[in-house]
């Protein structure tokens, strides 16, 4: 039985006080450790809102998030910051590197925020830089890199503190096809080798279909939550095969079904128990 890394219970987010805009309502699901999932939906569907909520960057107007056993409903800003630093790595569409710092310094940053000394952090930073094929670029300025390199540095930075969960919001939105492919392969490899769970927000269904689980959001609601399955070609106009109950369900049961992802899913399964 895989351990539950994150549980979202009845998440809702409403913006505005006089004119209320419901961005998300009553979204519940569980994410297992080392899961490799995608959140899809059209722009404005609420997928980024969902990611920001589970990333503790934003607070829900209703419902709660339990991450790694920590109920964050009543957590202070400081506590949420500490949990983000400890448990979550972020990769955004825009790399968001700090232009004032070198590649190495950018990668070291989450560790330094955690209060660890640079000397202690260096081996780990070098390890992740090597993992991402960024050796030799350590002393380069963040702005002296190509788009693909920048995004890889951002990924390295997200991995610095050995997060249990990496949240990626359109991580390849600014990259060409080749770099996009490379980034997803990298995500998959990290997921398998390090047992890091991934939630990737994308509007690209082809990308989503390479993950083990797809959460589809439409109009602020969780439309479907499927594992290792094909999605219906057009979103929202019918049912998908292997639709689960939205609460996480029983993994594995649908794993065998279809798709070339079956092999990868098995690998992920093997990596997950740690």
């Amino acid at each position, binding site marked *: 039985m895989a351990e539950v890394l994150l549980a979202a219970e009845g998440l809702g987010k409403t913006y505005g006080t006089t004119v209320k805009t419901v961005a998300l309502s009553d979204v519940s699901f569980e994410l297992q450790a080392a899961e490799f999932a995608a959140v899809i939906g059209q722009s404005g569907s609420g997928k*980024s809102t969902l990611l*920001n909520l589970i*990333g503790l*960057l*934003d607070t829900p107007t209703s419902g709660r998030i339990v991450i790694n056993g920590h109920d964050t409903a009543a957590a202070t*800003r*400081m506590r949420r*910051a*500490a*949990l*983000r*630093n*400890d448990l979550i790595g*972020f990769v*955004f*569409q*825009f790399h*968001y590197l*700090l*232009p*004032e*710092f070198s590649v190495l310094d950018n990668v070291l*940053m*989450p560790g*330094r*925020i*955690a*209060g660890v000394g640079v000397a202690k952090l260096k081996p780990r930073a070098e390890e992740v830089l090597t993992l991402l094929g960024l050796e030799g670029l350590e002393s380069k300025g963040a702005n002296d890199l190509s788009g693909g390199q920048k995004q890889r540095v951002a990924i390295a*930075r997200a991995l610095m503190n050995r997060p249990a969960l990496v949240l990626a*919001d359109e991580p390849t939105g600014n990259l060409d096809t080749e770099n996009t492919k490379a980034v997803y392969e990298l995500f998959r490899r990290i997921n398998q080798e390090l047992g890091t769970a991934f939630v990737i927000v994308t509007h690209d269904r082809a990308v989503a279909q390479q993950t083990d689980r797809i959460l589809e959001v439409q109009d602020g609601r969780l439309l479907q939550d499927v594992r290792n399955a094909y999605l219906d070609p057009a979103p929202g106009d019918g049912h998908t095969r292997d639709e689960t109950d939205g609460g996480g369900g029983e993994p594995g049961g649908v794993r065998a079904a279809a798709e070339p992802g079956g092999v990868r899913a098995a690998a992920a399964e093997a990596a997950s128990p740690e």
Partner: protein
Amino acid sequence: MLSFSIATRFLRKSPMQSILIAAGIAIGIGVQVFLGSLITSLQTSLVDQTIGHSPQVIVQSATDGQAVTVTPALKQAFASQSQVTTAVPTRVFSAIYRKGKVSAPLQFTGGDLAQLDTIYDISGRMSAGTARLGSGDVLVGKDFAAKNGLKPGGTLPLVLPSGKAASLTIAGVFDFGSAAANSATAFVDGSYAAGVLGYGGDQYSAVDAQVSNVFDSKTVAAQLAADPAVKGLRVTEWQAQNNDLLSALKSQSSSSYMIQFFVLIAVALGIASTLAISAVQKTRQIGILKAMGMKDRQTGRIFLWQAVILGVSGAAVGVVLGLSLIAAFTFAGRNSAALFPIHPQVAFIVVSFVVGVLVAMLSSLIPSRRTTKLDPIEVIQGG
């Protein structure tokens, strides 16, 4: 120290902006150091010129012209005042210089030269002859001597208050740097003065004293007046006699404080606005740092550190600038007798430096608060 290291990176990333803020602080503190030292030195010089070489506290008889008997108890009353640096019993009388058709009034102070020197520094301010107050000797002022063609070794014919004629030997000529003192005062030995006044050995006109801090003369006078040995005598001090000078000094001080205050306000506004711009420029970075888990207070401290770094470096340069201005001022006026020396005071410079750093830190409060309140989601969503 992560906040500090981020602060230095932010500053180094926009060197021109950093240099401009530091230069603003430097100019402010430079002006502060220069102006403050100038005004303080000007006042010291003024006070010194006016009352530095004259009695600051005087004890005399309540009735004009009456003698004061200097008893051991009276001496003790002065000795017990720690602020009193010197107390000299003097005998004062007026006489008229008369030679042919020329006559001029002179005020004589009689006393022991070594003691008189502690107040008047006669020996240190001689322009001709020797500083000597033996029996029959007299020391006259430079202007008086020049006007009447008198030289050391010559005689000084006088008509004493009693109407008797007398003649003294001019031992030397002093220059006190003041026309009034140089043309109308003279010094004789104490026993000669006693003879003229008809005083006994322990009878004097007054006891003249100086105090270590001239502005404490009021307190010292009040304490002396309360002493039983001084009872029945009149105690006067210079401040009561020099209201004009005092109010001039006070208005000079307050105008100097005003200028310094507004210079600091201008510096503070400059730093605050530049740091506020910097905070806006760095919003994105702050948002990212917060997304990565940096705590609100830690990010707020980034701008505080920036202010400290800018404040310390700016104020340090400012102190050097201020001292250079003082040196330039002194150098430019090295040949001018009218110029007074500027003595930069360490305590004042330290205070100026600290004030500079504090003003910078205070100016960082607005950007700091702004940064503390920033929600990472504002940046991530705006991405």
